């Protein structure tokens, strides 16, 4: 009964989405206040019904209702309850419902919090979001119904993929989706701007807080994914340039460029068409990512149950939404000209270069991810483009980006005013280089060119980021949220660089064979296999090892890596043992029984790896602090007056 209610709720949501789209766009076009009001009501209604559907699916999981096909495929009576709830979004159909829920949430937020926007503009935004909702709801109802019944009902479910049976499943997808989907708001703002043919840049100020909010979620979501892969998959890697990872990283790069570009457009009315194109691109890349992981065109560890028929639907949807937006862009953008100027070393210059580098990085990742597809489609054979390629080429635009970042954040608008800071910046650069050399030599025992470069850039960015708040505080000047946030976020970027350089340049991995009682040494740490035992979990059996780690005779910790075999079958899963430290992680994964009491183990020394995720969190935090700056909230009062003065042109 409840699944049927859920199904029906989705149908109602679809009808409301159609109403939302129609009344939103037509109401704005005809100036019909009643229609625009209807669109807003449709938003609320749609949110209610999608929430209802989501609740129905969740309840089916909690109640272990194996008469629902999706529940039977992704759950199991032995599955602990929190995983049963998280399993709602563990596979294709349910994750689409999560997409729809996030979209409806963002739409509701925009509708409720944008009362200061011009009515027609807001209505168009709502209408466009409605069009996107239609796409997802239609997709679900026609090809991917989460409420499809299994007749006769299964006695036992197939179980959630053991790799997903982890705490991170409860938070990674929802946060990631809030980010992905949140870019739809910027997309809708951009499209509304293009539809109205607005020549001014007030839309940039409106768009900025929404974009930052979505971007924060995406930053945290991607970091969670990386951290999860690290401790769950057992091979100690934190980024694999898998198509699905790239599918989330590309919108992030576009979003980062967008945030910075919005700043210029808002401040100086410049780069309007670039900013609009970035706003369209960020969400387009989100949709592209959805297509790539659900259509089967690319091989990916993350891919959902792929089906070319579904792929075709998404492709059609993609073509309409993105194609429509890009045609809109081609039509309206040529009229967006601005007459302002700026000097060579002004902030605008640096932000322009920033965007150039970010877009170059984005382009490289897109090309690398899709190249095998291009070649196969042209019958030129099958190739693979993997981490060795991406690791190399990604550095090409990133190195100059990091270098200029340290200078650009001090640049002022319009004029080149860097001369007074020249000496201080050179000083920081010099200190950064020295620390980099010392770190390589003293801490890790050898100096490597790439590692030195990485460390130097990391310290350069960190030092430069600290300069601003420190000097302001010392001069007892105000430190607005926007400035503090920017400094923290950039400092975070430096920290990420530090972590990546440390782990990539100085990590040590060794596969060893040990019998109980034997030990080996890596990077000054002794790893002793102290014991082996059987373990049993709620839905698995396994083997657990006690690995004692000590250094200079002092015991540091005992790790308990496991090898698990889930009752529902499948490949054995590895649960690594990780010792977390401020300067390094120590990572132990159990291999296989080699016979005669010996087991193989993979031991890893991962210096500075935690700073990757800590830095990412700081980036998100900085964004949050900047986004909450009083300017965005204060402006609301004065905005109505400004809005009235800036009429959109037809």
């Amino acid at each position: 009964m409840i699944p049927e209610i859920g199904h029906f709720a989705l149908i109602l949501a679809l009808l409301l989405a159609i109403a939302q789209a129609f009344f939103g766009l037509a109401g704005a076009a005809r100036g019909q206040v009643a229609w625009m009001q209807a669109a807003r009501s449709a938003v609320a209604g749609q949110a209610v019904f999608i929430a209802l559907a989501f609740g129905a699916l969740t309840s089916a999981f909690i109640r272990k209702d194996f008469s629902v096909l999706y529940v039977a495929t992704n759950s199991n009576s032995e599955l602990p309850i929190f995983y049963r709830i998280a399993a709602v979004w563990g596979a294709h159909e349910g994750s689409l419902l999560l997409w729809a829920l996030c979209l409806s949430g963002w739409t509701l937020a925009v509708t409720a919090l944008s009362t200061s926007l011009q009515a027609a503009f807001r209505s168009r935004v709502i209408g466009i979001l409605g069009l996107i909702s239609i796409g997802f709801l239609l997709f679900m109802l026609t090809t991917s119904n989460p409420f499809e019944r299994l007749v006769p009902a299964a006695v036992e479910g197939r179980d959630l993929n053991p790799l997903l049976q982890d705490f991170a499943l409860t938070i990674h997808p929802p946060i990631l989706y809030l980010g992905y989907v949140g870019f739809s708001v910027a997309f809708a703002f951009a499209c509304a701007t293009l539809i109205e043919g607005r020549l001014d840049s007030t839309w940039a100020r409106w768009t900025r807080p929404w974009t930052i909010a979505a971007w924060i979620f995406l930053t945290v979501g991607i970091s969670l994914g990386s951290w999860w892969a690290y401790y769950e998959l057992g091979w100690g890697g934190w980024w694999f340039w898998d198509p699905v990872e790239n599918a989330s990283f590309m919108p992030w790069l576009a979003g980062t460029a967008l945030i910075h570009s919005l700043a210029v457009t808002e401040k100086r009315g410049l780069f309007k068409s670039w900013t609009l194109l970035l706003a369209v691109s960020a969400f387009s890349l989100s949709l592209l990512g959805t297509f790539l992981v659900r259509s089967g065109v690319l091989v990916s560890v993350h891919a959902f149950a792929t089906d070319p028929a579904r792929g075709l639907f998404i492709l059609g949807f993609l073509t309409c939404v993105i194609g429509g937006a890009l045609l809109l862009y081609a039509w309206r953008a040529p009229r967006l000209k601005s007459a302002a100027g700026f000097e060579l070393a002004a902030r605008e210059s640096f932000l322009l270069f920033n965007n150039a580098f970010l877009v170059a990085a984005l382009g490289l990742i897109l090309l690398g991810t899709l190249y095998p597809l291009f070649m196969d489609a042209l019958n030129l054979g099958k190739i693979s483009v993997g981490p060795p390629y991406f690791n190399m080429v990604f550095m090409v635009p990133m190195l100059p980006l990091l270098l200029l970042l340290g200078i650009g954040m001090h640049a002022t608008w319009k004029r080149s005013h860097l001369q007074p800071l020249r000496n201080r910046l050179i000083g920081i650069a010099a200190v950064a280089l020295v620390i980099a050399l010392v770190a390589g030599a003293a801490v890790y025992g050898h100096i490597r060119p790439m590692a030195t470069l990485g460390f130097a850039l990391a310290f350069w960015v960190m030092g430069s980021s600290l300069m601003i708040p420190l000097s302001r505080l010392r001069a007892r000047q105000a430190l607005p949220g926007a400035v503090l946030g920017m400094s923290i976020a950039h400092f975070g970027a430096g920290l990420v660089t530090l972590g990546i350089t440390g782990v990539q340049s100085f990590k040590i991995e060794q596969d060893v064979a040990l019998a109980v009682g034997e030990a080996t040494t890596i990077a000054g740490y002794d790893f002793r296999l102290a014991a082996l035992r059987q373990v049993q979990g709620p839905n698995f059996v396994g083997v657990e090892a006690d690995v004692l780690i000590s250094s200079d005779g002092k015991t540091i910790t005992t790790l308990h890596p496991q090898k698990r075999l889930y009752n529902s079958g499948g490949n054995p899963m590895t649960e690594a043992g990780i010792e977390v430290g401020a300067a390094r992680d120590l990572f132990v994964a159990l291999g296989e029984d080699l016979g005669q009491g010996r087991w193989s183990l993979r031991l890893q020394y991962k210096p500075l790896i935690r700073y990757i995720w800590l830095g990412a969190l700081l980036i998100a935090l900085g964004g949050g602090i900047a986004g909450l700056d009083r300017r965005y909230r204060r402006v609301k009062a004065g905005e109505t007056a400004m809005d009235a003065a800036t009429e959109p042109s037809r």
Partner: protein
Amino acid sequence: MMRAAWVLASVLFAGSALGIDAERLDDPVLQQRYEHLTRELRCLVCQNETIADSTASLAADLRREVREMMKEGKSDAEIRAFLTERYGDFVLYLPPVSPRTWLLWAAPALLLLGGVAVAALVIRRRARTARANPAALEEEPENP
């Protein structure tokens, strides 16, 4: 009973390495080369892992081949050629530099130089505007 289950567990786990071979090459230089090369080769069964990380038995076989070829003194290029003759370029995670992949390898330079060129052109035009009309730049810049 416990021992039986223990034996069962061991049997089940045997043959499922985490890509972990306890057999190492004696020469540390060779071992390092081996570790580097196996991380550039794609597992054809679990197609999202390197043969270094994959649990598939084919990956273990391929790792064995790489080890043996290294001990015979074959170069990395020869080992790659051995594998691509049998499995095609798909097995290389670092795509070969060939006429078909020229765009892939030229892209970093192209995109970087292209982006820099466009940015430079725009900046030059705007700086000229600024020089022509310095009065417009008079107001104090706001926060970022």
